[in-house]
């Protein structure tokens, strides 16, 4: 009995949940920015930046997922994961999974407002951008927790 399934489950949780968060966030931001662009196509660059901001959660989730696959040996085809390590991977993935899911959605909402604000006056862009990144810190903290655990798991005793 070993923990390969749990390791893969962990990779899946990290990638999928954080991905959902980003997809929702970027999706709503993209809808709004397209509305703005239909009126004023010259703002494409600024809109693109604001739209992409909630996209990082998915990236963090993917990286945790990828690192789990690497360090558990699934990618090299010879997984060596004990039950305890498997649980550790799965547990670590919950941080970025849920952190990414909810912060992605929340950041998407902030991005929508930032886009509306920038549409009114382009000078507001930097303020909007900074405000939107305030949400990101929570995804970052979750990511770092997941990361620190995943990196240490191979050193865990069986």
């Amino acid at each position, binding site marked *: 009995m070993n923990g390969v399934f749990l390791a893969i489950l962990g990779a899946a949780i990290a990638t999928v949940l954080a991905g959902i968060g980003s997809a929702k966030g970027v999706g709503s931001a993209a809808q709004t920015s397209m509305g703005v662009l239909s009126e004023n196509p010259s703002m494409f660059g600024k809109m693109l930046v604001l739209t992409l901001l909630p996209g990082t959660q998915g990236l963090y989730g993917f990286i945790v997922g990828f690192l789990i696959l690497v360090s558990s040996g699934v990618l090299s085809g010879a997984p060596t994961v004990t039950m305890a390590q498997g649980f550790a991977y799965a547990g670590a993935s919950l941080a970025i999974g849920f952190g990414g899911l909810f912060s992605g959605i929340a950041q998407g909402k902030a991005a929508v407002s930032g886009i509306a604000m920038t549409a009114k006056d382009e000078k507001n862009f*930097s303020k909007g951008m*900074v405000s939107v990144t305030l949400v990101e810190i929570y995804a970052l903290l979750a990511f770092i927790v997941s990361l620190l655990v995943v990196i240490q798991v191979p050193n865990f005793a069986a």
Partner: protein
Amino acid sequence: MAKLKMKTVRIIALRQDRKRLLEHLQDSGLVQITKSEKSREGFKRVNMSPQMQVFERNVELTERTLKILDDISPEKAGMLASFKGRRVVDPDDIGVIAANAQEVIETCTRIAGLDKQCSDNDAEQLRIKTQLAQLEAWNTLDIPLNCTGTKSTAVFIGTLPEVYSEQRLKQALAAENPALEFALEIVHTEANTTNVVVIAPISQKTMADDALRALGFARPMSPTHKIPKEKAERLRAKSRQLTEENEQAKKEIAGYTEMRERIKETQDYFRFRADKYNVINHLDHTKHVFVIEGYVPEEDCETLEALCSRVATCAVEFGEAGDDAPVKLKNNKFAEPAQGILTMYSPPGKTDIDPTPLLAFFFYFFFGMMFSDAGYGILMIIATGLMIKIFKPDKKMRNNLKLFQYCGISTTIWGLVFGSFFGDAPAAIYNMFTGSDVVMAHSISNMNDTTRALMPMPVIDPQKDALTLMIISIAFGLVHILVGMGCKFVICWKQKDYAGAFFDTGLWMLMLIGFAVLAAGLITTPVLVTVGAVIAIACAVGLVLTQGRGKKGIVGKAIGGVASLYDITSYISDLLSYSRLLALGLTTGVMAQVFNMLSTMMGTNVLGIVFMILIFIIGHLINIGLNALGAYVHTMRLQYVEMFSKFYEGGGKEFEPFTLNSKYIKLQEDK
């Protein structure tokens, strides 16, 4: 380096010199002219609005013309055209542009006229189309639509709101009025309508009319006196003619394509003149003299005075500028590109120092740390360098490109520190072809690793040394915040607010240093722990004693002092925020590694190599796009939120001199 010192300036000159003086001021761009709405006692305003409107109309006309030209024969412009600078024009050519302006405006009027004709024709086409659709149903009718009868018969041509066969219609009419004599012909039927011709004796005209009306008969909306088929033919001919006219017009417009550059320069010429008249509108005049008031940087005062006395009979006086003076920044080559980042936040306010050099250093430093790939860094340096060389962009765009060039240098250095060149591309590709198992470099935590490494020196590998890197990141954060607080200290000192400098800023700085020493002690020697703790506690006591000094009464002072310690939480969260340096640096590296892995997946045959090149290019482009954006945004955030909140007030107004404000052309400077 700093904010330039501003002076107020007042120029009083003779009215006869007004044109010459204003033109020279506009060319030199030295002065920001204050535009007040009302004139002072004893002075009058000159109304230049009518002239100004003429110029503005011309600007508007040329703008419209350029748009029309773009629609019909788009300008061949590459994707990177927006980087291109304005065209440089010799100052002597302005005279030529002015002389030809009338001709260009006439051409523009012609183009706008042709465009209007085209859209009128398009509207006409639409009308013809609906008419044709209506006539379609009467196609087989061989008498005019508006025919109402002959000498002995009454003819009814029109539609009924129901589908009838000839038989049924006869019955229906007979049922309405059995006495009615008639002949009828169904011309056309479609859903819910029947087009019909009914002929009755003239004596029964009213009877027939009544009977038909009872069935809902209606004559056509626009009856013609022609046979429908002929009418349709004529309409088609008209439509063909309109199409041809439009084609002609478009061809003529397209023929004006090479006028585009001349239209652009003429537009700028009128823009200059409109600006100038707008300024005159806001100047105070008497019968013989007029007054210009404004701001000028101290370093330009002499140049301005010399210029004015050269071109006009005038008196120039300078004065000390107040707090509401506009701000002009001047920085060296290293820091100048970051000025845009600063003004995007807010130009410095009256008490602020100019933080651009510090901002520039930390911006490059943190950007590099987050983007951290030698390959990407080198690409950035080359790409921005080429763009500056090829496009010769305007100052603002040039500064932006420079900013990314400096960031590129920092990115390259950090890439080497992290052992990343397009991720682990060299090692991955080497392994793919030789089947060996080399790594990019050994990480500092695992120096006696025996696998072969490509890089000679050990590196900080964000994946293996995450914890170390996080501590390093937060240490950089501490330095960043301390520098910010140092600025606050200097500002307070300059304003002679020594209590603010030492108690509000100095104590906190010391306390943070104390904590840093304490943390360092935890890893190294216990002595440092004691030293750090003593510093921190001493500072905490100091804060409790001093922070309530604004409050009244001993209780208020005590509460204020203790409550101020709560600020420690905001410092902790600020410091933690710097862990993004690790997170984003790691993201770049891992993503690059993923793409390398994907690209080397297909083996070393020809197909595999093509696949590899393709995935390699696409993958790394995606990675550059995503992570450069991330690094840019988060670097900015660290500056704005973590550092500026410590000292920067902002709220200043930018110095906007009266100058040649153009969109397409730039006058060559020959000094």
